């Protein structure tokens, strides 16, 4: 019972971060039909820019409270990643909007390598310790179950952001324009919607969420380095496919489900494999799910009409 609760909690923490990243994949896919494989690198850039800001501030102004440092990291990282996301779309993808679908896809992979290499040049190949500015000391609200303030913080921030995004997409002028553009960007333009602006806004919002996910990820696992975006990026993509790519609630559900499955997998894999595999094999669950979804339900849990988008 304790293991169950504990794994649920761990799964929710990881899952809410996956969900934030998955939203970026699914928003861009919904509007352009493009799988933006560079999206995971935005997570990495967000974490490293925040780290740089925090290190700079804590040496320049010693004695700042940890929460202020973290906030400063976020305040620098989010706009930086938004600008980066905008530039990627503007320089990399916009010209290819009417090109065959493979062209922007390959470009996205290229952008991903480019960002990783640039990050390696700037921040080196070593693993950096990301300061844990929110208490990670475990508390035991229930016997045998540990939870840290950082974990609670992660879940609260992620769910708040998801709620805000749903409000934005479903109830605002920009959101309506996004949904209209997602259906047909040419018709949206002819109806007075600046489709280029809406597409840019989509990249900017998705990149902002990814930057925050990066900060949360690095804070939880106390580590940041140039290739840290790859695995969460791939898992978030899995989450987006699991929920039904192009579908926003799907990305959230997919992220949470993936986090939970992974966590339960890690918790019980030793039993399941009679001690042959241990919890460091948890990644296989994410990709088993990806495989299973693609075979049995290619449109995802909440998705539909993948075929006519494609």
């Amino acid at each position: 019972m304790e293991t169950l609760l504990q794994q649920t909690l761990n799964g929710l923490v990881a899952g809410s971060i996956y969900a934030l990243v998955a939203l970026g994949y699914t928003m861009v896919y919904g509007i352009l039909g493009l799988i933006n494989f560079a999206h995971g690198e935005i997570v990495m850039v967000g974490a490293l820019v925040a780290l740089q800001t925090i290190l700079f501030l804590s040496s320049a102004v010693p004695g700042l409270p940890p929460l202020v440092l973290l906030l400063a990291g976020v305040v620098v990282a989010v706009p930086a990643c938004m600008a980066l996301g905008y530039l990627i779309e503007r320089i990399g993808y916009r010209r290819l909007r009417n090109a065959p679908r493979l062209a922007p896809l390959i470009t996205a992979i290229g952008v991903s390598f480019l960002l990783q290499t640039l990050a390696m040049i700037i921040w080196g190949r070593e693993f950096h310790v990301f300061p844990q500015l929110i208490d990670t000391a475990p508390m035991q609200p229930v016997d045998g179950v540990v939870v840290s303030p950082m974990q609670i913080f992660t879940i609260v921030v992620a769910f708040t952001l998801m709620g805000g995004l749903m409000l934005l997409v479903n109830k605002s002028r920009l959101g309506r324009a996004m949904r209209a553009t997602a259906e047909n960007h040419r018709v949206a333009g002819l109806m007075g919607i600046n489709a280029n602006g809406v597409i840019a806004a989509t990249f900017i919002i998705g990149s902002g969420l990814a930057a925050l996910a990066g900060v949360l990820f690095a804070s939880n696992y106390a580590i940041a380095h140039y290739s840290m975006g790859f695995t969460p990026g791939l898992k978030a993509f899995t989450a987006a496919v699991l929920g039904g790519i192009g579908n926003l609630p799907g990305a959230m559900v997919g992220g949470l489900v993936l986090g939970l499955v992974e966590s339960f997998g890690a918790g019980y894999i030793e039993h399941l494999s009679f001690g042959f595999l241990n919890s460091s094999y948890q990644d296989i669950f994410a990709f088993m799910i990806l495989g299973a979804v693609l075979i049995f339900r290619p449109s995802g849990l909440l998705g539909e009409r993948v075929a006519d988008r494609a």
Partner: protein
Amino acid sequence: MITLLESRTVNKRFGGLQALTDVSLKIHRGEVYGLIGPNGAGKTTFFNVLTGAYPIDGGEFVMNGAELPAGKPHRIVAHGIARTFQNIRLFRELTALENVMAGHHIRTSAGVWGILAQSRAAREEERLVTERALEILDYVGIGRHADTVARNLSYGDQRRLEIARALATEPQLLALDEPAAGMNATETAGLRALIETIRADGVTVLLIEHDVKLIMGLCDRVAVLDFGKKIAEGTPAEVQRDPGVIRAYLGDHRAH
């Protein structure tokens, strides 16, 4: 007569095909102007060039004395031109109300932060936009379907919704591409009444239509395109008597 829209020697080529050749015409404020011609004459191409869906290869459009920006569809909408499509192109997954609200996008301004903070100004604008969109739906006669997803509307109602969405951009010129296509006689009569109401409310209408009876009954003036060239212009009665037109178009029609 005040000229609302003037096209000056507009040209459009697709590879080796000259789709429009030096098409010049003047549409007066407040009239219903018909654009007719046999299939493939270049009518829809004219719409696509006018609304910025295709780049223009020569000539220009002048609206209220100002040249229209080329290749920027949403800025052309800002100049007061809105259109519907020959083959319906609604935002199929949005409700009728949301389709109209999307059309109203360009006339509103609420930013992202206002919505997220649920500021009073943002909520007030959203309320006004909703109200206005409901009025427009009522105006075209489908107010009761406001919350229906567009793809579930009947064919005739989808056509009306396209007109509503175009009206939501608050156009001075409403360009209708075969609005009566596929409609039965009753639906066509209803459409005709709607277009007359729209004209009475001060919106100029540019109409592509194959239904000759509708064109003749509704239009103040008509231009005839054939192989991308304007071969005649005048009142429906004048055009009907024009020998070139009879040869190109109406003659064929009467033979049936």
